């Protein structure tokens, strides 16, 4: 397969970047997903004193050093946002909307930014609550739907859904100019709870309630077990062993997403361990062919 990567690394914070560097040194075909400024958590840190060799440095300075390092090795960062990762057995399928990337192994270095679920969110998952409006929209043809949007990308999804649903209520958690179709009703209120019986019936807000059959919650970050169906997690963290292996063969995780302490050097060490184990797994596959 032409476009089969050896390792796909999801997340460009210290863990992801460390994994990328180590995998590249071992001559693996990698793809690194993240953003140009690596990690907002890192580059906003005002002062770091426990990073060996760079004492009294700012997050911004460290970020710049990491970017220099990546550039020196010709490691690019792909800025596309992965919606889902499917473990297909022999490879992983990473989806960016309709576009598919394939990789033999995956290293998850997505950090810990996912918000707390709303009341009723977990109970009604699959019974009216969803995280992908474009995926489930046709099921709500002619029915009322609420979309809780956390960023601009959510507006696109809302526009698409409005072509099918009877009415779309858009509840933004951010300020700004909303590029939404005219038939979408914008509600500037705080969502509190999702209620219903066998299916979702209403969304309760701080100053009112709306009757809806579906509630889509479009956050910045996807919880790991939503991102990778079948992944074993422990509350907020992905379960790994000391080799940074998850319960899914070929899938590793590193950094804040696997647990505390939330520290750069720990994340980078784990990124390296994950990469080296992914490399070993790949080399074993090659010799056993």
């Amino acid at each position: 397969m032409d476009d089969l990567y050896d390792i796909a690394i999801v997340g460009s914070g210290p863990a992801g970047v460390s994994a990328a560097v180590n995998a590249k040194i071992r001559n693996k075909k990698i793809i690194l997903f993240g953003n140009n400024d690596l990690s907002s958590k890192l580059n906003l840190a005002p002062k770091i004193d426990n990073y060996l060799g760079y004492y009294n440095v700012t997050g911004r300075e460290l970020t710049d050093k990491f970017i220099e390092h990546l550039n020196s090795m010709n490691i690019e960062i792909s800025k596309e946002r992965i919606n889902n990762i499917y473990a297909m057995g022999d490879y992983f399928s990473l989806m960016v909307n309709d576009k598919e990337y394939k990789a033999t192994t995956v290293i998850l270095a997505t950090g810990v930014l996912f918000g707390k679920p709303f009341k009723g969110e977990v109970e009604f998952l699959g019974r009216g609550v969803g995280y992908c409006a474009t995926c489930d929209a046709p099921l709500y043809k002619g029915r009322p739907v609420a979309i809780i949007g956390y960023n601009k990308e959510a507006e696109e999804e809302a526009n698409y859904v409005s072509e099918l649903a009877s009415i779309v209520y858009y509840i933004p958690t951010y300020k700004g100019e909303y590029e939404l179709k005219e038939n979408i009703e914008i509600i500037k209120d705080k969502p509190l709870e999702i209620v219903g019986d066998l299916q979702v019936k209403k969304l309760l807000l701080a100053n009112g309630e709306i009757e809806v059959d579906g509630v889509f919650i479009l956050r910045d970050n996807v919880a790991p077990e939503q991102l990778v169906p079948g992944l074993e997690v422990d509350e907020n963290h992905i379960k790994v062993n000391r080799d940074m292996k998850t319960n899914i063969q070929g899938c590793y995780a590193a950094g804040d997403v696997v647990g505390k302490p939330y520290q750069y050097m720990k994340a980078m060490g784990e990124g390296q361990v994950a990469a080296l184990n992914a490399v070993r797994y790949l080399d074993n596959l090659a010799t056993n062919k």
Partner: protein
Amino acid sequence: MVKQITDATFNEETNSDVPVVVDFWAPWCGPCKMLGPLIEELASEMGDKVKFAKINVDENPITANTFRVASIPTLIIIKDGKVVDQSLGFKPKPALVAWIQKYL
């Protein structure tokens, strides 16, 4: 292999001595497309112990409604004419195998 069933053929096709796994899918559903090949693999590996069928929810709304399918993909297991379990969303193959084996 995995048989395509419809509202009209559902009852007949799911009336079986062995457990039946029904995959509710639709052509526009991303995760369904990912699950499809895994179900095909399972059908060839476990076909003697389990019957696998798939039903397009767009074309067969009656069955989808009867089983209150609210998100897809949804898999249901029918044993002795009764639904014994259902599974929502994509699952990797080892998880699917473990789930089905509970009902064998």
